[in-house]
């Protein structure tokens, strides 16, 4: 059985990876096999920091040949090191899974010996898990940059999801902070995987499909000087051209003293705003250019949808009973579910303000931008609208900061990819 201390070290080193989802795959159980994947994903527990545990997230090893400036596991750091064998990982995964502790495995590793050697052992582990242990639960594998392409493709036919972390939002920053990784070594594998997935889709491949749950990536925010506009442009390209399922952001907080890194952290509000903008791009039909200019940052005072609406007041108010879905989605205070509910409900009767309240639309925000049966309930003064939206924004900010503002945060909070 696996050593407790080792498990602790390799969990500690893996936990800053933001991704936790187990969704997107419909992998079925096999005769005599163990497990299946649930398309919507399942959370199995929640830790006191409010995050969910869905997958057993561990590193195979935290012994690294690289020396990335921001990473606590970099070669020159003085931290306890450990390594697990493929069998130890398989045994732990299967036994946790059978007890319904987890939905599957999220396996990553620091780069030991060489990228090929590391990738080979990761591959061997998930091959064993699938073939020997007949495990059909969810597997998310972290790709190792610079590793052999054939190894990557082999892994991609066994895993449900893979991720190559883009680490930093520009090539220049990557060169400065992670000189041993190149943009090319991160983008090329993502491209090849995308092409392989496209091939499977076009040819309707059913068996041993490449990454049924697609790819994700992660980048560190605030360790380098890029603006929110630049970051979101990159995000948009990753979604629309690379077909990524998710882009994760992790706000930088200094754990490592270095003259190449800023002394202050980026703060969680910025991360929060980026996620809000990310949602607008994926689910609300916004283009980045509408939300944030190339060299601009998102407003800390309002959420990005409010900020956009305030700049486009000439488009409002819209009539709840006749506005098309795409327009409703752009109203502050109306979410995707809310917009859908309004569209359904108004087929039965025309809706008034009271109906919306019962449907849990956030009227505090929405009332300034809508009419119900021609009636307007918001404020006529633009200044007043701004102030009331800003007040809500401040609440959001106050909560964000007070929760994470303790001094100790800076010691071990998010540092992004390890």
């Amino acid at each position, binding site marked *: 059985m696996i050593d407790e201390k080792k*498990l602790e070290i390799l969990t500690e080193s893996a936990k800053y990876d933001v991704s936790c989802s187990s969704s997107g795959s419909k992998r079925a*159980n096999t005769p005599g096999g163990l497990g299946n994947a649930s398309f919507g994903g399942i959370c199995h527990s*929640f830790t006191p920091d*409010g995050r969910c545990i*869905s997958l057993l997230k561990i590193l195979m090893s935290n012994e690294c040949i690289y020396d990335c400036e921001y990473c606590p596991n970099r070669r020159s750091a003085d931290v306890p090191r450990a390594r697990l064998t493929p069998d130890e990982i398989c045994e732990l995964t299967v036994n946790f899974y059978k007890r319904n502790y987890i939905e599957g495995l999220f396996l990553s590793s620091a780069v030991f010996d060489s990228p090929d050697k590391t990738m080979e052992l990761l591959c061997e582990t998930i091959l064993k898990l699938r073939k020997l242990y007949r495990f059909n639960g969810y597997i998310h594998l972290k790709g190792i940059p610079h590793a052999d392409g054939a190894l990557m493709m082999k892994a991609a036919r066994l895993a449900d999801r893979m991720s190559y972390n883009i680490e930093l939002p520009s090539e220049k920053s990557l060169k400065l902070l992670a000189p041993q990784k190149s943009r090319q070594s991160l983008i090329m594998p993502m491209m090849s995987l995308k092409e392989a997935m496209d091939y499977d889709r076009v040819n309707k491949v059913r068996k041993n499909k490449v990454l049924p749950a697609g790819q994700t990536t992660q980048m560190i925010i605030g360790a380098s000087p890029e603006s929110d506009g630049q970051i979101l442009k990159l995000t948009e390209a990753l979604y629309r051209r690379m077909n990524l399922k998710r882009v994760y952001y992790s706000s930088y907080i200094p754990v490592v003293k270095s003259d190449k890194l800023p002394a202050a952290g980026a703060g969680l509000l910025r991360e929060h705003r980026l996620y809000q903008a990310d949602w607008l791009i994926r689910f609300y039909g916004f283009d980045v250019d509408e939300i944030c200019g190339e060299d601009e940052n998102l407003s800390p005072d309002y959420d990005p949808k409010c900020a956009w609406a305030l700049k486009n007041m000439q488009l409002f108010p819209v009539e709840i009973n006749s506005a098309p879905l795409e327009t409703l989605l752009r109203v502050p205070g109306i979410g995707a579910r809310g917009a859908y*509910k309004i569209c359904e*409900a108004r087929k039965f009767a025309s809706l008034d303000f009271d109906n919306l309240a019962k*449907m849990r639309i956030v009227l505090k925000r929405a009332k300034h931008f809508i009419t119900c049966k021609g009636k307007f309930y918001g404020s006529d003064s633009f200044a007043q609208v701004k102030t009331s939206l800003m007040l809500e924004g401040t609440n959001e900010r106050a909560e964000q900061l007070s929760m994470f503002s303790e001094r100790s945060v800076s010691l071990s*909070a998010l540092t992004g990819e390890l």
Partner: protein
Amino acid sequence: MKIFITDGSSDSFFTAFFDAYSEKDCIITSCENVQPRFDSVVVRTESDGEKCERVKRGILKYDERALNDVLMTLRSCDSLKEQAAYDYLKRLFERKAPVGKAYNLPEVIIFNEIKDKVGKEIHKMTGFLRFMESKSGAFYAPYAPDNDITDLLMPHFAERFKAEKFVIHDTKRKIAGVYDGRDWIMCYAGEAEIYLSEYEKAFETLWKKYYRAANIKSRPHEKQMKGYMPVRYWKFLPEKHDGG
């Protein structure tokens, strides 16, 4: 005004619905301790197969999904579930077409809320159920859900743990789902005595260690944790024992 008291089963509810259909104003409940109004008449409903069938056929005629939705709602622990289902079905029969998305009607909103709570608990339990391995190699998961959902959880776990044997035990309702590696059945189950396998404690300890190590201590957010994973479920989660 009439008060129809059912025995809590769905057949009893459908029978009561049949009898109550022509009433202008009435209450349907499975709650014994309902406070009768001074002018009310209490009617105890015995299940009647024919009335029951007629109501079900009627529902299916107007909306194929509504029957399942009502059956789901009737599994709720909410004391107003029968009333909510009654008001909802009245609307359905009045309109003679699906009303599930008529969010402008308060009856529909209340009905959907009760139904969705049951659905959400089923989803949560697919994650929060915890099995332990017994000496015989079978797995045992005790829990105490708010709603009566065990038979709805069984298909999920029977598919997932196809080759295993397992028991899911609702200790609150004293019922259990039993899967023998091929088929599953529901049965009565009072107290259970379990002899654990030799490795069980070790894996449980590893899980607790993992849970503690995965937490980011410097970013506490208990409120969010408890929102997603309510304290009443913790009794059956080993990671939340001894101060996890």
